[in-house]
């Protein structure tokens, strides 16, 4: 058993599934349909996201290119969020998902501090329809859909087929073939988290987005507005 985790990594284990996602960056057009589908599937409140698409213009006129970078929980095989959770509210599923038990979560944000991908957020308390609030939430790879034979909402709605989902242990699955044949990369491999979201053909410039603060005037203004709504601070200011 992996130390501090509830299930051993299932990748390559016969008879077990290992769900994974491949994101083909050549196909993403930045339509944000995945973001909208995810918001609709879970009634994700304003100001927080389970999945996002970062957008950045690269180069100088006339040689410019707009790059898109879909982001979500990487459902790591060595998830630091799971190991650090004081109540085992977040746990490793035997099929690879990293899931959240809301009834145990104490909103200590240890998992948020542990995650190098900023894939977690705190749900506000005052939600109008879904009453789950004051706990940490994250992408679940749409476990409720996948266990019923569907693909995640973001994959279902992706019009460019950028997001491809499947069982990495199934030799006939599309994700397995893509990971085996294409030049894929994972985010922040140096952190040792063994992430299970693979990106096809990420250039250095795209992955550099992971370590560059907002530079444009618009992005900086957006950031200021965002933090202004959090009592003017960049830090968590109590369960909303």
């Amino acid at each position, binding site marked *: 058993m992996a*130390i*501090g985790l509830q299930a051993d990594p299932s990748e390559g284990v016969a008879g077990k599934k290992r769900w994974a996602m491949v994101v083909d960056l050549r196909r993403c057009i*930045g339509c944000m349909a995945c973001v909208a589908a995810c918001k609709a599937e879970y009634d994700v409140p304003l100001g927080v*996201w389970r999945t*996002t*698409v*970062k*957008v*950045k*213009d690269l180069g100088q006129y006339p040689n410019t290119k*707009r790059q898109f970078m879909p*982001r979500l929980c990487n459902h790591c095989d060595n998830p*630091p969020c799971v*190991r*650090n*959770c*004081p*109540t*085992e509210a977040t746990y490793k599923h035997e099929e690879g998902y990293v899931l959240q038990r809301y009834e*145990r979560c*104490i*909103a*200590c*944000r*240890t998992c*948020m*501090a*542990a*995650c*190098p*991908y*900023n894939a977690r*957020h*705190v749900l506000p*308390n005052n939600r109008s329809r879904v009453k789950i609030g*004051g706990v940490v939430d994250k992408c679940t790879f749409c476990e409720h859909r996948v266990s019923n034979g569907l693909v995640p909402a973001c994959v279902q709605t992706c019009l460019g087929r950028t997001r491809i989902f499947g069982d990495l242990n199934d030799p006939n699955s599309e994700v397995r073939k893509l990971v085996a044949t294409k030049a894929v990369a994972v985010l*922040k491999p140096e*952190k*040792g*988290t063994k992430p299970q979201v693979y990106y096809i053909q990420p250039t250095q410039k795209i992955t550099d987005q*992971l*370590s560059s*603060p*907002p*530079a*444009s005037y*618009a*992005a900086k203004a*957006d*950031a200021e507005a*965002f*933090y202004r709504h*959090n009592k003017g*601070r*960049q*830090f*968590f*200011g*109590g*369960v909303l």
Partner: protein
Amino acid sequence: MFEYSWYHIAPWGAELSVYFFLIGMAGMSYALATAPDLFGGKFESLRAIQTPGLAVGLIVVGVCAPLLIMDLGQPGRFLYPIIYFHWTSPLSWGSVFLVLFTACIAGFYWAKNMGNRNDLLKPLAIVGSLLGLSMPLYTGLDLMVNTTREVWATPWMPVMFTVLSISSGTAMIAIIAKVRGVTNADAMAILHTILLASVATTFALFLGLVVSLLYGSGEMQQGWEILNSQYGTQIWLLTFVIGILLPLGMLALPAVGRQPTMLIGAGVASMVGAFMVREVLLVAGQLPQLYY
């Protein structure tokens, strides 16, 4: 350049650094308050500050409780790390130790003043002091285990937090000693020695921090840049000058540093540093990954 970024809130804010500071101070206050019964000898000179020292520990724990409840949103949540104990999480251990530490403070007070159980004093002093010093240890470990935050993921983080707690707890006891009129030579010498040693160790650890940030990975250098650009006053003036150099200068000569006024002045200055260094470390560990 067009950008469409998604912004994130750093999970741990000022309430955590306040908690780290207070709970560490409570631990060392208890250790010094129980030292007369544990060691005897020259430590008997601290007996007059025993009850107020214990009271400080209890009051500070009492302040920390609502602070934690406010941070977690609901009172009952504090019990969850104990009920659903997860052994790889320092926070789980810390929750258990915090409850046991509080019980030790109350138990020691009872055994000393109400129960007349002198046989329990030494065991309670040993166990309680270890639990008290485990408070800063666990808060440091709580940062250290976040291996993906490079600024925090260093083994000297819990060491530094413990040393900072020793200095702030000693400073608090020095203040109490002055207020209670306990200014005998032995008491002042003990407090001076502990404070000087802890501040000098903090100085060495601070230099280590600076060097590791300056010559560390890209993320660490970014943390260093953020600290210097946005938190320059906190790290250089309040931490380094006021919190480390000033008390070090005041305590360097024993003849001068053992004077009650100088000891208190150095203690208060070191408390400022002990709080601020936690604050800047908390910031430096989180902001480099805020936008990504």
